[in-house]
């Protein structure tokens, strides 16, 4: 019985971590959906969001909620600047070139963070509390439970937004055919900006949650790689795919980490990626004719 309980606890922890993966994957998907750009800098924006929170909450001593709002807004601002300054001039270029630019952005962000805050890992000020939560008998870390809830609410919000908000239609129309979107009176460059702003703001928010669970360091952008696996598994242009892919990868990583040992976590993740690319290269929910990575 206690084996089953342990298994449940591991699974719940995996779901929590998976929800964070989903949230980060969502940032990928939002930007890809509207602009067809694979933004490899998402992991670094996640990291930047965490450091911004650190700067506002620990450095300036602002209350946690103010720091949260400011960091998310800061992430959005960075997204706007990146889109306007670096991505829009690249419009119409080879997708691989744009892709490379985002890798460059990632490196620059890491460098800037190291310059400003140094390379050593730090802990974020605690603001989520520490009392454990019990679901029945199973123990769940409070932080992970909160991360799960926040991710779930945000993702549900985006799903609804895309379904019922007129702007969601504009985003999907732009992704489907830019020239036709223009011809319908949709402000295509505006849609690009909005996608980058929302995507980067989401990533920054995910960074705060991630940092408050595991601490922050300039190398935490590697998390973005797992999130990239999630979007490839779930489908590059599917929000539902990001959600389910994230939970799937999170749970498998937790199982592998517990039962096989920590060194098997990444192996499992990328094992799933390889299997997925062989069976369904466009992901679980991705549009079939989409470019394959």
């Amino acid at each position, binding site marked *: 019985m206690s084996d089953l309980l342990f298994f449940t606890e591991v699974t719940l922890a995996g779901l929590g971590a998976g929800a964070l993966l989903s949230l980060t994957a969502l940032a990928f998907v939002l930007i890809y959906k509207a602009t067809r750009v694979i933004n490899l800098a998402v992991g670094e924006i996640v990291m930047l969001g965490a450091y911004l929170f650190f700067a506002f909450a620990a450095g300036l001593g602002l209350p946690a909620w103010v720091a949260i709002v400011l960091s998310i807004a800061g992430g959005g601002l960075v997204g706007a600047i990146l889109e306007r300054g670096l991505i829009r001039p690249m419009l119409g270029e080879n997708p691989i070139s744009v892709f490379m630019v985002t890798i460059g952005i990632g490196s620059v962000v890491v460098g800037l963070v190291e310059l400003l805050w140094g390379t050593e890992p730090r802990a974020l000020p605690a603001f989520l509390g520490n009392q454990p939560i019990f679901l029945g008998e199973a123990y769940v870390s409070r932080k992970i439970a909160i991360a799960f809830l926040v991710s779930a609410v945000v993702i549900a919000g985006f799903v609804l937004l895309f379904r019922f908000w007129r702007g969601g*239609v504009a985003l999907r*129309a732009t992704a*489907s*055919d830019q020239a*036709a979107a*223009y*011809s319908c*009176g949709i402000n295509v*460059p505006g849609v690009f900006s909005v996608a980058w702003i929302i995507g980067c703001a989401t990533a920054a928010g995910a960074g705060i949650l991630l940092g408050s669970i595991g601490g922050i360091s300039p190398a935490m952008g590697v998390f973005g790689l797992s999130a990239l696996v999630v979007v490839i598994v779930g489908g590059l242009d599917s929000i539902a795919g990001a959600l389910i892919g994230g939970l799937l990868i999170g749970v498998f990583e937790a199982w592998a980490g517990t039962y096989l040992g920590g060194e098997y976590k990444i192996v499992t993740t990328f094992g799933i990626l390889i299997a997925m690319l062989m069976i369904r290269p466009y992901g679980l929910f991705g549009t079939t004719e989409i470019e394959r990575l």
Partner: protein
Amino acid sequence: MAVDTILDINNIEVVYNKTIQVLRGLSLAVERGKIVTLLGSNGAGKSTTLKAVSNLLTLENGAVTAGSIRFDGGDTARLAPHALVRRGLFHVMEGRRIFEDLTVEENLTAATFALSGRGVKPKGFDLVYQYFPRLHERRNGLAGYLSGGEQQMLAIGRALIAQPSLILLDEPSLGLSPLLVEEIFTIIASINRDLGVSMLLVEQNASIAFAVAHYGYIMEHGKIVLDGPTERLTADEDVREFYLGMSGGENHKSYREIKHYKRRKRWLS
């Protein structure tokens, strides 16, 4: 000027990729409330002309290097494509270009962005469904699963949502059965009659274009070679032969005949 023109293209030149010149001094005008057709063979520059008007040319690395285009009295050169749409110029692109992974209704919703900042009231989708009852039946289905004719109806339906004063129609007959072509053109004509929307219609199918248009232009190699009211064009011997496929008499001509070539030359000069 006595005639009220809604669109005035004045001596424009268009160059793609800074190297390939497609239009060489093309001029044409669309009178308000009228259907004007622009005919020509493949590669004459018809679609380019429409894209130059709607400014979608920039997406394909094309640019208007000389001349001017005035829509509703204002120069279009500095306006982004979506800004032009919001002023009432709607371009129904070649090949329909509907959003395939959106539903029919979402496709129409996308077109409501054309009304932003114009102070006009959205009329709802009933007008579209009135002209195209078939779209109503399929309003919740994915647009990609519509038949070619229905997709063309949807493309025109999107234009109706935008409440434009001028519609640019690029080969609405493309890939449709003769029966459907007739149905669609009947609707095009009645939209023009009922709503007073001006139209610039690019076609390969000259006879159906002449059936609805008031005025016609014929272009070759990037410029206009002949124009006039449709009655005059349809009576023109050259037009009858080259565009309406009527050889005028029983002596069927061969493409090898030198006379044919000479006559073609004549109107080019």
